[in-house]
């Protein structure tokens, strides 16, 4: 089954169902303008510097529809168009690169008491706090946290590749036509800890007592970092999240995920079977809200069972068979948000976040981090102009250990969101 068929199903169902079922829907359109540092990259800080500063373009558009066949059976579908890996062009321009995405396409069932929910198809990963990070409009800051947007040196084809993203930066530095260069080098930038679009194919069961606790268990097509397509059904993984409402102002979530992440290709025949390589994530997310203040954040620990690929030799490291490395990474962020009551509809938010990488084993015994640690600060403001129009702006800066990129990866983003 290919993406076009899913698109056709998605298109037809609203037509068939609109007059017969209760329908929930929404439509979002986000327009953005940015000023980025000279080495701003999608895989480092969520936005690629390709055209002149302050160019206005489409950031994201989404149509979500939910049909309630009755009190127990539902269908949810979402069609989204987003920049293709941060490229900045309007979709109707020939050189524009936009991707059509179907983040949700699932049949859902719940019991009468709504204490058990099942969904089959494509749905948002229950891991961590991605549930309110998927769409630009829902994010307090325009960008996603490092755990969801920073591409680490893990290729879903080759495993660990040292300096994976840096190779691309080097290539671009000497190029005049950045747009063309990006198209050539986009093949592999690595992968974030959790897939940047946050959806998975599979079966999810949710249990709980509304307002008290909730347990999500999803059997899906791969680990959280595995980008999902319609050819990944041979991958497998499990993602769980236990949400606890400790009191009326504190929500706590404990997540765990484990699964395969290497796609089988001609490049990794030496790794056969590729399913032996797994990613494991554990996470703790929290949200505390009182009066006009909100504190939220997430701690994630990740482990990769992985082989190392050397681009210089086109070989995997290991004498008879590829050596298996155990790589660790930790990610955390904390958001402080304040909604000034004297400016209704406005907020200000500050985020501090970090990615810290463990060491990789070297034959020499030398201690070497497997990627560069990152510390990012971001400040954002938002204002709901009308119930259907909102504006937000953010500025972020990040320090990357052992590299002098910090000043080149600052970004200022201004977003205007429309929704129906």
């Amino acid at each position, binding site marked *: 089954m290919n993406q076009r068929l899913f698109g056709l199903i998605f298109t037809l169902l609203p037509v068939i169902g609109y007059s017969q*079922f*209760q*329908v*929930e*829907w*929404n439509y979002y359109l986000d327009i953005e303008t940015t000023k980025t540092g000279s080495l701003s990259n999608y895989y480092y800080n969520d936005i690629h510097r390709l055209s002149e500063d302050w160019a206005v373009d489409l950031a994201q558009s989404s149509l*979500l529809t*939910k049909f309630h066949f009755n009190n127990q059976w539902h269908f*949810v579908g979402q069609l989204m168009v987003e920049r293709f890996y941060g490229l900045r062009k309007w979709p109707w321009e020939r050189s524009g690169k936009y991707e059509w995405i179907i983040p*949700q396409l699932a049949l859902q069932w719940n019991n009468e008491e*709504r204490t058990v*929910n099942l969904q089959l198809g494509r749905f*948002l990963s229950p891991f961590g*706090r991605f*549930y*309110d990070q998927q*769409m630009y409009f*829902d994010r307090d800051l325009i960008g996603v946290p490092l755990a969801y947007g920073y591409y680490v040196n893990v290729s879903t084809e080759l495993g660990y590749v040292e300096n994976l993203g840096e190779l691309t930066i080097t290539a671009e530095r000497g190029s005049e036509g950045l747009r063309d260069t990006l198209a050539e080098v986009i093949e592999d930038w690595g992968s974030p800890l959790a897939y940047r679009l946050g959806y998975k194919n599979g079966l999810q069961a*949710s249990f*709980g007592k*509304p*307002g*008290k606790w*909730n347990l999500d268990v999803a059997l899906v097509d791969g680990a959280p970092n595995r980008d999902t397509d319609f050819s990944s059904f041979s991958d497998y993984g499990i993602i769980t999240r236990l*949400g606890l*409402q400790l009191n*009326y*102002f504190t*929500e706590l*979530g404990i997540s765990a995920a484990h699964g395969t992440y290497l796609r089988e290709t001609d490049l990794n025949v030496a790794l056969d079977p590729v399913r032996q390589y797994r990613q494991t994530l554990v996470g703790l*997310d929290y*949200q505390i*809200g*009182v*009066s*006009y203040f*909100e504190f939220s954040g997430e701690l994630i620990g990740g482990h990769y069972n992985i082989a190392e690929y050397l681009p210089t030799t086109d070989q995997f490291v290991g004498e008879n068979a590829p050596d298996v490395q155990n790589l660790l990474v930790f990610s955390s962020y904390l958001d402080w948000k304040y*909604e000034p*009551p004297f400016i*209704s*509809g406005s907020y200000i938010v500050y985020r501090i976040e970090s990615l810290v990488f463990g060491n990789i084993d070297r034959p020499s015994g030398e201690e070497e981090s497997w990627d560069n640690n990152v510390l990012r600060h971001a400040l954002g403001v938002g204002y*709901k*102009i*009308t*119930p259907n129009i909102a504006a937000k702006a953010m500025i972020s800066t990040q320090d990357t250990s052992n590299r002098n990129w910090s000043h080149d990866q600052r970004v200022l983003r201004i977003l205007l969101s429309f*929704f*129906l």
Partner: protein
Amino acid sequence: MRFAILMFLLVGTQLVFGQRNGRNSLSGSIKIPQLERRVKKGTGYNKDGTKVMHSSDPMASIDRNIIISAHPLTFNPELDPTPNAYVTQKEQTFIPFVLPITQGSTVYFLNEDEFFHNIYSLTPGARFNIGRRPPGSPYALEIKRQGVISLSCDIHAHMNGVILSLDTPYFTRMNSRNQYQLDGLPDGEYRIEVYHPMLKKITRTIAVRSGESVNINFDFSNQKKL
């Protein structure tokens, strides 16, 4: 002589206040098309991680939130604050969906869920944000603006409600049998407005006097969607 003075006072009072002393009533039925409540901006998830909930309370349904109001055209009515004007948030739903009040009334917002809620309005002239509120502790807010004031919850994006702030004390709500009864209307002319949360309102002008009982039926079948 005393009798003459008494009669003079009675006649004088009748002349001055007679318009307001009537006890007229307005009643009838309202035909509404079968419209499921469309929940806009339903993202399928909540910002606090809780599952999306919808209350089955009848006061959250469309057909219990049709408001009939009579706006005097020949006199200015006194606007006493509407007593017990409560909007509760229960099962991630505003109850009632539409709260009619007289302009200047104090509305109490009450969180009856076991998690926090927020209420804000972006209606021009009535923008407010009461922040996150704990369960069981009402928050009072005086509504100064007249008209439709939309309510939202920042945490649960699918929640929406309405305060209908009226310049008249004469209003009622359609009952579960699709009927309404508006009593105590003083003599005079009125513009009758029937508010439907999803359809264009219906207006009609009437005159009542001398304890009249007027029956008017309304039909929303051909009204445009908002």
